[in-house]
């Protein structure tokens, strides 16, 4: 089958990593996945095409309105591909009534001017099938499809046993693990959780070496956020410095796995809205490719559903975050056992091969 992905690719955001993997997996399985548009030097491994009629389906991967192409391309696309062969993957749950969780929301009308009904009507106008990367969509007419997956070939280091992994992880020379904690992600609806996380680990800061925060917008609250009184990009750089957190530039998608592997721990955090809707992201899976112990700061139900039962020990659990990290430092083999078992679970249940087959089944149904 020939699939035409439609999205807005950037090296450091959204679905670039997942689409790159769909392209490779489709090729391996005898299909073809191509990006819509003119070829782009930043994404040399991704083929591009504007020959809409040469494809069986158009797969729109949408986070925000600007992920749809502009004119004239949008007209070519909609004229060339009939509605029944268009599918939207709604990555941020905009195809729902307006939902506000803390200061997160699926419809930021004050930023983009769009009311909730516009998302619903526009998506309905474009495609018969709307997919969301959650196992429990709120709307009856949404098809659950996780979209993101686990690429075991991207795992940075394979270990023959948890003890080997723990030994490498605990090595005292510090060469392999210069950081105690690293988080890679943009400052978008994550500050309140990250702040609590970094504050919580202060009692064991001395055992963790440096803490790293990489992504857009961690150095200051942007002027437009101040102007719009928008709380979703709050940040306190002084507080971060005081907590021993170093801020750095954002990383391109191709460097994230390696960078995270330089840290002993990497938290996985979802926006409040995503936790509410059960939406998964690329990072939900990709962090398990890094040579690190992921700390799942997610609702236990999500962890159980997505990562499997072994991953529950990678959450703070009832003991709390500090106690859990203490135990991980004291008994790393126990937790590496959980990491390796979770990797196996992800490889079995959430591989991109499996995702592609699920997508094809949805398209053919």
């Amino acid at each position, binding site marked *: 089958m020939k699939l035409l992905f439609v999205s807005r690719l950037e090296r450091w955001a959204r679905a670039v990593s997942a689409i790159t993997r769909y392209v490779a997996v489709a090729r391996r399985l005898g299909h073809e996945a191509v990006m819509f548009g003119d070829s782009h030097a930043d994404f040399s491994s991704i083929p591009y095409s504007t020959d809409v009629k040469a494809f069986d389906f158009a797969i729109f991967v949408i986070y925000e*309105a*600007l992920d*749809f192409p*502009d*004119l*004239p391309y*949008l*007209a*070519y696309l*909609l*004229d060339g591909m009939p*509605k029944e062969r268009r599918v939207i993957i709604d990555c941020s749950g905009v195809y729902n009534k307006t939902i506000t969780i803390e200061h997160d929301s699926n419809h930021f009308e004050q930023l*983009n*001017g*769009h009311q909730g009904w*516009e*998302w619903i*009507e*526009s*998506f309905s*106008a*474009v495609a018969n099938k709307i997919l969301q990367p959650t196992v429990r969509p709120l709307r009856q007419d949404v098809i659950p499809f996780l979209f993101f997956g686990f690429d075991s070939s991207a795992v940075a280091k394979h270990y023959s046993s948890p003890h080997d992994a723990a030994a490498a992880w605990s090595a005292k020379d510090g060469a392999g693990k210069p950081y105690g904690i690293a988080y890679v992600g943009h400052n978008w609806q994550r500050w309140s959780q990250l702040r609590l996380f970094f504050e919580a680990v202060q009692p064991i800061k001395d055992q963790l070496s440096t803490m790293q925060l990489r992504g857009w917008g961690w150095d200051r609250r942007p002027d437009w956020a101040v102007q719009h009184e928008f709380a979703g990009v709050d940040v306190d750089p002084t507080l971060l410095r005081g907590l021993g957190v170093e801020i750095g530039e954002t990383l391109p998608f191709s460097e994230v796995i390696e960078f995270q592997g330089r840290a002993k721990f990497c938290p996985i955090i979802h926006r409040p809205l995503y936790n509410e809707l059960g939406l998964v992201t690329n990072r939900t899976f990709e962090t398990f490719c890094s040579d690190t112990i992921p700390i799942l700061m997610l609702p236990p139900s999500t962890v159980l559903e997505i990562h499997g039962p072994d991953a529950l020990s990678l959450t703070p659990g009832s003991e709390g975050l500090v106690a859990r990290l203490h135990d991980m430092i004291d008994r790393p083999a126990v937790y590496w056992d959980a990491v390796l078992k979770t990797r196996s679970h992800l490889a079995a249940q959430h591989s991109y091969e499996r995702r592609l087959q699920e997508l094809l089944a949805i398209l053919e149904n």
Partner: protein
Amino acid sequence: MNILFMTDKRANAGSIQAVASYVRAGDELGHNIVLYGRPDPKYPGIRWSTDLSSFDHVVFICEFEIHWISRLLLLRILTQIPRKSRAILDADGMYNPLIAVDMYDRNHRDEDARAWWVGRCDALADKILQPTLEPLNPAVLPVPFYGYDPTLRVEPRTHDKRFDIMHVGHNWWRWREISTLLLPAIESIRPKLDGICFVGLWWDVIPPWVRELNLELAIDLNVDRFKQLGIQTRPAVPFTEVVTAMSEARINIMTQRPLFRRLKLLTAKYFEIFCADTIPLVMLDPDQAESVYGPAGRELALHGNVAAKLLDAIQRPKQYQKAVEDVRHHLSAHHSYRVRTRQLVDALQS
């Protein structure tokens, strides 16, 4: 016919007055004419809708920008309204070859910008309308679009005019004509004139973004010269107050950016100024003035000796009032919004 207008609505600029007049004329003729959007008290007289499915035709009123059509709205337009039912009113003559007038005014920055614009228009709509009777591009349908709405007329007042001369319009590609023709003329007769006022955007100060956007030619100004000539400035007024504002002066001068004159593009101001209780003097070629306003229009063309004409109008207002009334009769007969609505309906059906 059900017609939906879409535009980047602004209360103090653009075509919002024309939309309000189309709504009224449409009602008289049995057409349902509506502007896309939600009701907004800043825009009295406008009928609104966000339901695309109820309309036979959509007309995008575009000036020099088109990005106000959001992607979500585009999705609905492109999927719910057949291409043959979509038309663009190209108010600023952008759907043309690259045109630069006297190395000054221009419709596009360069050929790439022109191709980008034309590509977007071609993708969006089947018909391109321009408010001119003589389009350069054979693919363009000439539709005058803007018209005369006598319901906007105000009661004449013979006294308490606050100004002798007023200019209502934004400082947008007008400075060269104003600084080289109008201001020298005013200077030569200034002692014989009372108050003078320029109403509109950017007559008091050049905004800081002008240089960033490389718009120094489009928005230029000499504040000292205004002060020296005793010219007051006032901010732009909403469309509901334009005619009232114009009526505060004995004479109103209409200028038009050079590109528009070259393309013979009509604007709302061509007709709005004749609704005011004032003597309109239009800085147009007399032939162009006559083609729009009828024979009396020649008399109101501010052409040649500008200073003498201004002074003559101040000193012999009755002579000019006669020409103004003749023009109003001509406009009522040939350029009313009833006529315009029929022309628009014909163009959309063609």
